[in-house]
């Protein structure tokens, strides 16, 4: 231990002798390390963001819809709906959706708005948040009540944000009482996937709209599985129903959000890995910087090395001394990089009050890699130093 401290002292003395370029070399290493940490953090933030968008559409969600393309008519019928209710296991809630449109007057102008018909479970299944009032109930649905909830956007356009209490809207020449205003749980979900609940939308009870709009097919069926584990069962049971009715699933889409989640996770992992490889290159460049500087140092200190060898330093002492110098450069560069790479996201998160995750693993890996890069690239110059011919390096011949 005593001899390690001694070598550490020699190494620090050596670095102190060339403070300027030691700091620059450290900086190079630091930037490499910082970029690895930052890239991984960005990757994680992006991934969390996209995942939250998808999950915001509704958790454990399975959706079934016909594309209408194919030899047979591929649209969900009301009979299919009954079969789904009968046969699909593991269901938490079900929300069939009728997708219609109506023209309403907004500030004296006729405007087309989407009119959805769905069950009372729709709000829960599609993760809708009520801004004002409430969603309609099962009883209202059964009684064919003429009530509607409207989207935040429609509310803004038609009522300028005023309270909707006592207000109504004319749809299909009928007066619907407005009982609530909603927004989507994760609003930007609309950007990710076409969301029928986004934009200028009014939602009426399912059976009301079926009757009023003379609907013959169900546009989309949302099934919320009762647990994440039940998602698979729901998907396969729903598929069985479609196959029983139509012979195959051609022309139908039966998917869970898990499919998208897995895909997104795979994509973001691939992107993060790619970015990490690029950031790794800057680590490599930092390492080459260390090797370069150490080679210069070893050449400059040829006589110093010769003197130490003449005084009885072992080859191992010289090797360890220069390896330590390279190690100190890369480790302090690595620390600096971790400080920047973890500090910057944390600072941004603090200032803008958003949680920015810093991956502990990325910090550890970046630090470990920068250290081994230093040792690896320091080895060659250190070996060169240790292998010097004493007589030549003393340089008096």
């Amino acid at each position, binding site marked *: 231990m005593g001899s390690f401290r001694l070598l550490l002292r020699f190494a620090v003395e050596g670095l102190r002798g060339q403070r300027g370029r030691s700091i620059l070399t450290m900086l190079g290493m630091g930037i490499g390390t910082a970029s690895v940490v930052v890239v991984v953090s960005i990757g994680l933030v992006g991934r969390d963001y996209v995942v939250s968008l998808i999950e915001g559409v509704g958790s454990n969600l399975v959706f079934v819809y016909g594309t209408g393309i194919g030899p047979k008519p591929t649209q969900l019928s009301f009979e299919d709906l009954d079969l789904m209710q009968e046969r699909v296991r593991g269901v938490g809630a079900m929300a069939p959706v009728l997708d219609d449109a109506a023209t309403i007057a907004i500030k004296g102008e006729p405007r087309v708005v989407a009119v959805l018909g769905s069950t009372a479970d729709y709000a829960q299944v599609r993760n809708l948040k009520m801004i004002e009032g409430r969603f309609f109930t099962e009883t209202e649905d059964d009684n064919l009540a003429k009530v509607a909830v409207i989207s935040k956007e429609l509310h803004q356009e038609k009522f300028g944000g005023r309270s909707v209490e006592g207000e109504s809207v004319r749809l299909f020449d009928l007066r619907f009482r407005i009982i609530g205003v909603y927004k989507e749980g994760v609003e930007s979900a609309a950007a990710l996937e076409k969301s029928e609940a986004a934009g200028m939308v009014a939602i009426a009870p399912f059976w009301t709209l079926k009757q009023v709009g003379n609907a013959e097919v169900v546009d989309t069926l949302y099934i919320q599985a009762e647990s994440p584990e039940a998602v698979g069962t729901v998907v396969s049971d729903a598929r069985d129903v479609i196959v029983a009715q139509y012979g195959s699933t051609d022309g139908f889409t039966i998917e869970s959000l898990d499919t998208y989640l897995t895909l997104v996770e795979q994509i973001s992992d691939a992107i993060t890995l790619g970015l990490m490889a690029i950031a790794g290159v800057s680590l490599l460049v930092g390492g080459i910087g260390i090797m370069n500087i150490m080679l210069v140092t070893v050449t400059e200190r040829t006589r110093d090395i010769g003197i130490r060898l*003449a*005084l009885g330093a072992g080859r191992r002492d010289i090797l360890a001394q220069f390896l330590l110098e390279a190690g100190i450069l890369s480790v302090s560069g690595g620390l600096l990089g971790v400080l920047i790479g973890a500090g910057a996201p944390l600072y941004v998160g603090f200032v803008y009050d958003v949680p920015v995750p810093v991956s502990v693993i990325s910090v550890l890996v970046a630090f470990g890699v920068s250290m081994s890069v230093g040792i690896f690239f320091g080895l060659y110059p250190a070996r060169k130093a240790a292998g010097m011919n004493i007589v030549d390096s003393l340089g008096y011949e």
Partner: protein
Amino acid sequence: MSLPVDRDLEKPLIALSGVSKTYAHEGVPVHALRGIEVAAARGELLAVMGPSGSGKSTLLHVLGLLDADYQGTYHFDGELISGRDGDELSGLRNREIGFVFQQFLLLPQLSILENATLPALYTRDRAPDVCEKLARQCLIEVGLADRLDHRPNELSSGQRQRAAIARALVNEPRLILADEPTGALDSKTAQEIMDLFLQLHAAGSTIVLITHDLDVASAAERIVHIRDGQIIDGLL
């Protein structure tokens, strides 16, 4: 071989026998040493004299274990040390040999005290503060008590050579090898350094002085002459 003083050369401290060294200089083989036979007794002050190019520097490298690539045998205190590996030689060099060079070869970034401590630190068997205490003692002995924290470039060349001598003494080596130790000094300072060597000699150190300067060599008990890589005694 003439022995001006009674010295026991039956049991010399160092003894080279049949030492030859040939190296290629721009493709031409140069015979730096040819069958050197030389020995120094314990406590002897021996001068090796020769003009430049005579092979005396090469001889110093061999004696100082700085160069292990030669033919022939080298006995140190009766033990055969030629052919030993690098680690063993660096250990021997560290403990048994103290160097004094013409160009002093102090490390410029270290203080005089740190310079003198260095060989003791490389021995690795004593705590750093013990090593420093030894070095301080040696520096006081050579008259640099008030210069311990100075860097070499803050000292006169005479003082630098004293510091180098203190460094050579710190591990109490059995052999002191001096290579033109006064070559870079003015005559007054040179005399002071020679006096220091004579003092060490009087205290019992074995010293080999390598020089081309007859004034320096004449301070020794015995002079051997080297020319064209061979010891030529009795010519002068």
